């Protein structure tokens, strides 16, 4: 459909088709990357890297109507790699040091946002794959089957990852509430 529209506009070259498709789906990809990574700037980098990877294998995409899902999968893979790299090199965000929530931020047990801090910290230490399915489920509002298709894993695995991730997040909240 999109390709047809591109052709209708007279955009026939491969590079122009790619540019038109990425431009159209950029907002969704960027927002998803930023939500998964919790960092808008890193989200920009992830999407840019994903675009480079996508362009290098654009010729393999048979059906340009599926560009959104295909590009989204590449973006998710980039995010997963970045989350894994982040776990290997734990960092403390400067924003977190001055009191706003970020990875590695210091909790404030007396403040009104203690539960939120605990949730954010617990989310940051989830497995990268768990962070991805939670973001797709509770931010993108995708169903389990849609997530399975988007991430290329069985539905059962999605359910299992969601179950474990939510369990760990609930536990973190409960511990924080008990401490108060």
């Amino acid at each position: 459909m999109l390709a047809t529209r591109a052709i209708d506009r007279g955009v026939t070259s491969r590079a122009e088709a790619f540019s038109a498709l990425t431009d159209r789906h950029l907002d969704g990809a960027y927002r998803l990357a930023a939500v998964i990574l919790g960092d808008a700037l890193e989200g920009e980098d992830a999407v840019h890297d994903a675009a480079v990877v996508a362009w290098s294998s654009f010729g393999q995409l048979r059906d340009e109507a599926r560009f959104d899902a295909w590009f989204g999968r590449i973006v998710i893979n980039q995010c997963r790699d970045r989350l894994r790299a982040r776990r290997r090199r734990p960092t403390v965000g400067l924003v977190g040091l001055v009191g706003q929530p970020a990875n590695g931020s210091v909790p404030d047990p007396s403040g009104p946002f203690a539960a939120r801090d605990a949730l954010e910290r617990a989310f940051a230490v989830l497995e990268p794959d768990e962070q991805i399915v939670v973001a797709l489920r509770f931010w993108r509002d995708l169903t389990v089957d849609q997530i399975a298709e988007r991430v290329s894993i069985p539905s059962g695995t999605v359910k299992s990852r969601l179950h474990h991730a939510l369990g760990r997040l609930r536990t973190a909240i409960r511990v924080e509430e008990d401490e108060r």
Partner: protein
Amino acid sequence: MTEDRFERSLRELLADRDPGPAPERLRRAVVGVPAMPAGARGAAWLAGLPGLAAAAIIVAVGIGLLLRAGSAPQGSGGAPQPAPPASLEPGMGLATATEPVLPVLILFLVLPAVGIILAWRLRSRIGRLAIVSLMVALMVGYGSLAFIDVLSFRDGAIIVAPATLDSETDGKPTHLALVKPGELFRVLLTVTNVSAVPVTLRGLDPSLNDIHSPVAKFVGLGLLADPQEINPAAAVAFRPVELAPDGHVDVVVLLDAGPCATEPGQDVGSTGRDYVPFVSSALGWERTTRVEMPFTVAVPIQENCP
């Protein structure tokens, strides 16, 4: 916290991370990706460069091993190729084991590098564990080739020429060679590859000869001129032989009786050899192995001979 409140908090957390539409600079950068010069897009394929390099090394090593194997004569079950014309003389068939540079490189650089790259790129934890286990098993298996016994005289021909007096010492047969001082004599043996991998027999390592000892010295190695005729006197110069697992070959070891040899009798001692120092290689690991003989070859020597 109730389930509703928990889900609401989680949704709020994620919604707060949403930065909204992509900034213009990202849009320009992404839309311009196809126009980027190839070098500027290097980051993506640079990430795969270590894998490509490792693959190239493996291919090169494989080709090298194949070429090496191809250049060695193929011993079908140990039978040598058409014999060279030269008859066995001292100095023939001697070899020295080379430093195992290539196997060490594979063991300590290539295999770990390939394992790390593959494990890095795999998304499944089980897959990574499987890759790491496989690489460790390959390293242990390949490394153990440097230490296991690959050759044996477990069966086949045993002939010492010329004549011997046979006896038994501590339950082990002893063949006492009846030789004159400095005389050369021959021992015909069947060498078997007892390992599970092809082994190339490269020759005899004379470095284990003790030059100050009156014991008979290893001075040459040959093959039978006609494998069907078990005649050590008709041995010819040695050429490297590749032995398949359980493959075997008849070899003739040439020994120098030494200046102290004498006729057996009273006031006469004897010294013997009960191993042969072969140089062999298995999958690139080259080494000298003392292959124990099922008997001792002894030479009667004069008492107090220097």
